[in-house]
């Protein structure tokens, strides 16, 4: 999967699962946690999605609000654990 495909996959998942207002537009750089689009309790489900989709294990110490705060940040995190 290319980097662009990975970004788009995560972005579409966030839009589908977490955004309540269908008119909200977000980009790869839109803050997700600090904006409140994804709250701290929901981060766990996003983590499970990433681990399932990319067949990786992300240590909970690395799953911080900062690391999850945008699609670009998430992709950088996932890349650290991809073989």
């Amino acid at each position, binding site marked *: 999967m290319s980097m662009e495909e990975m970004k788009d996959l995560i972005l579409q998942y966030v839009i589908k699962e977490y955004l309540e*207002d269908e008119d909200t537009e977000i980009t790869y750089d839109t803050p997700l946690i600090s*904006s*409140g689009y994804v709250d*701290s309790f929901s981060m*766990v*489900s996003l983590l499970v999605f990433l681990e399932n989709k990319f067949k990786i294990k992300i240590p909970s110490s690395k799953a911080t609000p900062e690391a999850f705060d945008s699609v670009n940040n998430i992709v950088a995190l996932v890349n650290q654990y991809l073989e």
Partner: protein
Amino acid sequence: MSNIGSYEQRLTGFDWSIAAKELEYHDGESINIGWYCSDRICRKGSADKIALYYQGFGGADKQYSFNDVRLASNTIGSFLQALGLVNEDRICLFMDRVPELYFSFLGILKIGAIVQPLFSAFGDESLFVRLENAQTRAIITQKKHLAKVRKIKDKLPSLEFIIIIDPIETKDLKAREIAFSFENTSPVENLDIFPTKAESPSVLHYTSGTTGQPKGVKHVHYSLLSQYLTAKWVLDLQENDIYWCTADPGWVTGTSYGIIGPWSLGITQCVLDSGFSAQTWYQFIEKYRVTVWYSAPTAIRSLMKAGSEIIRNFDLSSLRHLASVGEPLNSEAVIWSEKNFGKPFHDTFWQTETGCIMITNYPGMKVKPGSMGKPFPGITGVVLDAKTYEPIHEPGRIGLIAFKPGWPSMMRTYWNNEEKYREKFVNGWYISGDKASIDKEGYFWFIGRDDDVINTGGHLVSPFEVESALLEHPAVGESAVVAKPDEINMEVVKAFIALKPGFLPSSDLELEIMNFIRKKLSSVAMPQEIEFVDQLPKTRSGKIMRRLLHAKEWGEEIGDISTLEND
């Protein structure tokens, strides 16, 4: 000098008439929280004083004077009246922390109706059961939350009005939906305030119990006396303070101390409507020169996790007094705040049912890190023997936290559930459902809940509610939901699930079930962990032994398992 002065001296001859006198309220007269929090402050000469500094995500800053708040609450009140809404109608607020929520809260009270604030992160099922229980006539919401309301409105014949407070095209409105814009409506200078009395209902907050559906906690306008005086003496709010209560008004802290307490005192408060990040929070304190900060242990522990280094990037010297609520504040957090902010967080203990702070560490009083503090003057707080329901006098012995009923903000009933309400009182005591011990100096020390309710990040979650929702998932045969220890949130929700025949455990199914609960109930109720099991431990009579699973999670002794069916 703190407002309370000497705690010991305040105990002597305390009477709630102190608050009545300061509020210029006399028994039998009208008392309306909406009026006290806006009109009265303007009449006392503070019309131009800032009531609210608001910062939305992305730096959308706004500010409103007490006169702005008065006019805006008049305006929405007038609009609601024109719709035919009257006193004691339940009107739900289902919004993020936007200024319109605060104006609407007061406007609803001004017309004598009952405010039903609900957490905007609730899923459609959580919203439905609360609106149905209250037979809510109107809901005020934002476009972003409209889809959840639309999903359930056909099952709610009592819900006559769905009011949307942000721009929406008329053609996009469906049956029962009405658009209302504060900006495009002429401010109403004079509104006839409904002459509510002390016992007139005011706010209906929902709280979760171990069994049954959530309970609507009914409060009355007389609660103002407790909220006013505790905000003054415990939070130590003073004329020139800039106060920040981080709680969402969907929960009781966000109304008792995020609206009523500070505004009845004429205090400037600020609201941050965005997600959590240490950087954003510290920036906010620095920008608005926050002096009094009322937050929660989960947030404090998250700040601790972000480290001390980041604090040095901000000027937080404005901070004068810090307090915390929602769950027990661990001693490490108190010591950490003293080291990093130069002052300790003062723990406060209270509940949706109590309406105001009951046990706390007072300004100027020696803070014992990890302790809950002492009862507020006028509050008789004890721990009771769990078998005899008699007060325990022996220091250090654990019992049930209980209070002698009679303070102004005590709940008046559970909505449509008088039986459950009566169950909260034994031997003339209000039983809180929490356990503690009292040391020889009279400080309370929190032990835990006396039931299975999960306190996650200060939010109470009913295992029953989550288990019921889980059963609606096609793969779930049966489930047991317990608290699991968590470094940040104290506890999180964990579900043990036995699948129906034909379904196999997988991480994809785990994610599907998590998201199912998140959307149906809320992210707070979403299991943070799911463990698939072949069968759940049950008694011989078939009852799931939740306590066994709880003990396993907490590394506790399992205790008597003689009734266990499937060892």
